[in-house]
C-alpha cells in the first residue's frame, strides 16, 4: 500500500521519530501531572469532610448546652466543595486560583462567597503544564517541524521534479501531510485517551475533546501547507510558520485579553463588598422594626412570630444579615454580567484565534473555566439559601437547638 510506503519513508527521516516521541512524551507528562493534581484535589475534598464533622461536634458540644439556635447558626461552618470533573486533568484551568472547597455560614453570604484560595501567585502566573497547554502551544510547533519542508525539502533535495514526473500531485502532498498530521495526533491524543479512561470520563465528551484538538491540529497543518505552497525555501517556511505561531498563540490572545478587560471593566466586586458591609452594619443602628419589616417583606412566613423586645435578638441579627445581601443583589448581578460578558467575548475571540478557541473548548469540557467557577458559586448560593431556611424556624420560633439538630442541617451534595 502506498501509505505504508510513505510511512516507512517518513519514519526514516532524521527528525521524524524523535519529534513524535518528544510530543508523546510531553503529552504523557502533562496527562500524568494533570491526573496527579486532580487526585490531590479529590484527596483534599475527602480530607475536609471528617475534619468538618469534628469541627461541628466541637461547636455542638458547647452550643447545645444552652440550645441557642443563633449561636449554632453563627458558629457552625458548612463545607462545600466542587469535585473535579472527569476531564479536569486535561485542562486544570482556574482551579488553581479559585477555591474548590469553601465553608459558609448562615450569615451574609456576599462577605463569604468571594473568599479566595491560598496559592502561590508566582506559580499561578506561570500556569500549569497540563494537556491543554501541550495541545494548544506545543503541538503546533511539532507540526511545524514535521510539515514546514514537506514540498520545499523535496525541492531542495532535487527530488521534486522526479516526484512530479512520477505523477505526484496534490494527492501525494495531502497523503504525506495527512500521515504526519495523523501521527502527531496519535502521539498527542493517545496519552489523553489513556488519562480519560483512567479518570473515568464519558466517551462522548472525551471524543469531543479529541475532535476539537484534531480540528485545531488540522488548522495548523493547513497553515503549514498554505505557507509551503508559496514556494519558498524550507528555512523561510520555518521562520514564517514560527512567526505565525507566535502571533496566533501569544500576541493576538494577549491583545484580545487587553481589549476585553479594558472594554468590560469589572469593578463591582469590590464595590459590592464595600456596600454590603455598610448595609449589614448599618443594621445595628437602625430601628429594629424597620429592619424586621423589610425582612418580613422578603420572608412573610416569619411575620407573625414573637416580636423582638430585648436589646439584642438573633432574629434581628439574621434579618439584617440577609438584608445586607439583598441590598447588593443588583451589584452582584451586574458583577456577574461583567464576568460573563468577558467570558462570552473570549469565546467569540476563539472563532478567530484557534488557540483561544481550543482552550475555551477544552476548559469548558473539563469544567474548569470561569463558567464552572460561577456555577459552583450558584450552587453555594442555593446551599446557603437552604442553610438559612434550616436555621430560621429555630431562630424565629425560638426553638432550642439541641445536639440532635446538628445532624438535621442540610448537607452539601455534589449534584447541587
Amino acid at each position, binding site marked *: 500500500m502506498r501509505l505504508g510506503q510513505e510511512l516507512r519513508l517518513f519514519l526514516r527521516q532524521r527528525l521524524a521519530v524523535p519529534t513524535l516521541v518528544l510530543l508523546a512524551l510531553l503529552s504523557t507528562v502533562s496527562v500524568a501531572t494533570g491526573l496527579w493534581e486532580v487526585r490531590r484535589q479529590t484527596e483534599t475534598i475527602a480530607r475536609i469532610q471528617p475534619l468538618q464533622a469534628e469541627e461541628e461536634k466541637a461547636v455542638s458540644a458547647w452550643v447545645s448546652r444552652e440550645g441557642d439556635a443563633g449561636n449554632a447558626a453563627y458558629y457552625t461552618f458548612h463545607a462545600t466543595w466542587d469535585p473535579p470533573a472527569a476531564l479536569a486533568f486535561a485542562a486544570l484551568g482556574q482551579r488553581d486560583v479559585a477555591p474548590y472547597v469553601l465553608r459558609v455560614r448562615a450569615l451574609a453570604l456576599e462577605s463569604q462567597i468571594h473568599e479566595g484560595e491560598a496559592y502561590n501567585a*508566582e506559580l499561578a502566573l506561570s500556569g500549569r*503544564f497540563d494537556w491543554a497547554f501541550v495541545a494548544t502551544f506545543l503541538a503546533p510547533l511539532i507540526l511545524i517541524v514535521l510539515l514546514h519542508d514537506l514540498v520545499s525539502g523535496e525541492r531542495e533535495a532535487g527530488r521534486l521534479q522526479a516526484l512530479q514526473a512520477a505523477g505526484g500531485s496534490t494527492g501525494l502532498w495531502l497523503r504525506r501531510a495527512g500521515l504526519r498530521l495523523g501521527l502527531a495526533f496519535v502521539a498527542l491524543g493517545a496519552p489523553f485517551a489513556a488519562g480519560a479512561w483512567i479518570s473515568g470520563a464519558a466517551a462522548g465528551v472525551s471524543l469531543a475533546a479529541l475532535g476539537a484538538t484534531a480540528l485545531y491540529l488540522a488548522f495548523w497543518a493547513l497553515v503549514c501547507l498554505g505557507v509551503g505552497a508559496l514556494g519558498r525555501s524550507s528555512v523561510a517556511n520555518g521562520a514564517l510558520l514560527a512567526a505565525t505561531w507566535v502571533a496566533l498563540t501569544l500576541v493576538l490572545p494577549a491583545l484580545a*485579553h487587553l481589549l476585553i478587560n479594558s472594554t468590560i471593566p469589572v469593578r463591582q466586586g469590590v464595590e459590592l463588598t*464595600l456596600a454590603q458591609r455598610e448595609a449589614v452594619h448599618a443594621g445595628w*443602628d437602625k430601628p429594629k422594626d424597620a429592619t424586621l419589616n423589610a425582612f418580613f417583606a422578603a420572608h412573610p412566613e416569619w411575620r407573625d412570630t414573637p416580636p423582638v423586645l430585648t436589646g439584642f435578638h438573633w432574629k434581628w441579627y439574621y434579618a439584617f444579615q440577609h438584608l445586607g445581601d439583598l441590598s447588593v443583589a443588583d451589584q452582584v448581578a451586574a458583577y456577574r454580567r461583567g464576568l460573563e460578558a468577558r467570558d462570552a467575548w473570549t469565546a467569540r475571540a476563539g472563532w478567530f484565534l484557534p488557540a483561544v478557541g481550543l482552550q475555551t473548548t477544552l476548559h469548558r469540557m473539563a469544567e474548569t473555566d470561569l463558567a464552572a467557577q460561577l456555577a459552583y458559586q450558584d450552587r453555594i448560593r442555593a446551599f446557603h439559601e437552604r442553610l438559612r431556611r434550616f436555621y430560621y424556624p429555630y431562630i424565629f420560633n425560638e426553638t432550642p437547638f439541641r445536639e440532635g439538630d446538628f445532624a438535621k442541617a442540610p448537607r452539601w451534595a455534589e449534584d447541587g
Partner: protein
Amino acid sequence: MSPVLRIAANELRLLARTRVAQIAVALVVALSAVAALTAISQGRESQEIRSRFQAQADREFDGQPARHPHRMVHYGHFVFRPLPALAGFDPGVDAFTGSTLFLEGHRQNSANFGDVRQSSLLVRFGQLTPAFVIQALGPLVLIFIGFGALARERESGLLRLHLAQGVGARQVLAGKVVALAAVAGLILAPALIALVWLALFGGAPAPAVAMLAGGYAVYLLVWVLITTSVSALAPSSRSALALLVAGWAVSAILAPRLATDIALAAMPQASRLETDIAIQRDLKKIGDSHNPDDPHFNAFRASVLKSYGVSRVEDLPVNYRGLIAMEGERLTSALFDRYAERQFAGQREQSRMALILGLASPTLAVRSLSMAASGTDLEGHRRFLQQAEAYRYTIVQGLNRLQAEALTFSDDTNRNRDPEAGRRVRIDPGAWRRTPDFVYRPASTAEALTAALPGLALLGLWAGLAGSLAWGAGRRLARGAG
C-alpha cells in the same frame, strides 16, 4: 573604522534593506510601545481606583456612628494594596493576587478580587506588558533576524569572501554580535523610554530602574550571543533556526510551566479551608473562651485579679470583657502569624525551587529579577499581607482596649437588658477617627534590589555561558572556515 564595526554596520544596512527584518523589528517595537503605553495608563488607572476605594473605606470607617467598640471590631476595615510605580512596566503577580483585604476581629480573610479570577482564560495566555514583550518576544525577533547571520553566509560563500579580505573569523562573529546587539537595543528602546518616564514622572526609584534596564540588556545580550553562536555552529541555517526556536520555546514557554508543576508536586500546600480548621483546633487547645472552666482563661482571670489586687472581676477598674477580648485576639493573632509564616515559608521554598529551573531558562531568571526590582513579586504581596495583618491587630486591639477602658463591666454585661447601659456602651465616634489609617510601606529600594539578586546571579551565569559559547563558536569558525 575597525573591521568589526564595518561588518556590524554592513549587517545593519543589510537588515534595513530586508523587508522581513524591517517588519519583525517594527512589529516588536510597536508592540512594546503599545504595551508600555497601556501598562502605564492601566497601572495608573488601577492605582487611582485603589486609592479611591481606600479613601472611601477610610472615610466610611471614620464616619461610623457611636457604637460599642466590639461592633467596630466586626465592622472591620478594608485595605487595598497600592500598585508600585514600576508595576506599569512589569505588573508581575499583581493580576494573580487579590488586591483588597477585609480586616476584622479574630478572623483572617483572603485578599480578594484579583484579576485572574475576574478574567476569562485569556489571562493565561500572558499579559501584554513591556516586560512580557521583551522577555518572550524580544528573543524570538533576535532569533528570526540572527539565525542566518553566519550560517547563511557560510552556505553562500560570503564568509569565505570576508576571510579572503584578511578578516579573522572571530572578527566576523564579533561584527554580527554587535549588529544584533544594536537590534536588541532597538527592541529595548520603548521599554527603556517607559522606564525613564516612570523614573522621572512616576516616582520609580532610580536604582531599581537601572537594575531593570541593565537586567533586560544583559538578558537580550545573552540571546544575541546564543543566536549568533548557534548560527556559527549549526550545520545549516535551517538547523540553526530549528535549534534556536526550540531553545526559545523551552526557555520562555515550557520551563516556566514545568517549574510550576515540579514545585507544586515537590511541595504541595494545604488549602485555605484546612488551614482555617487547623487554626481553630490549635486555638481551642490553648484556650476556649466559650468554656467557662477553660484552664487558660481561668488562669488569665486569676492573674488579672491578682495584678489589680481584687477578688472579683466586677471590682476591676477596667472592663474585664475588654481584657478577655484582647487576650483572645492575642491568641488568635499569634496563631495567624505562625500559620502565615509557615505558608509564606512554603511558598518561598516553591518559588526558590521554580527559580532553580532558571538554570535551564534565562527567561525565568530575568522574570524573577524583573518582578523583584519592580516590587511586583510574591514577596511584595506577602509584605502587603503581613503589614495588613499587623494593622488589623493594631486597630482591633485598640478597639478592644477602648472596650476595656471606656466601658464599665456592668454596662457591658447588661447592655442588652438595660437600654441605658446599652446607650452608655456606645462610645463617641471620635475614637474611630483617631484610629490610624493603613499606610502601606513598600519594599525599600535596598530590599527590592536584594530580592532581585538571585535572578541577577542566574542571569550573570547565563551571560557567562553565552559568552563562552560565543568564544567557542569563534574558535570553531576560525578553524573550520575551510
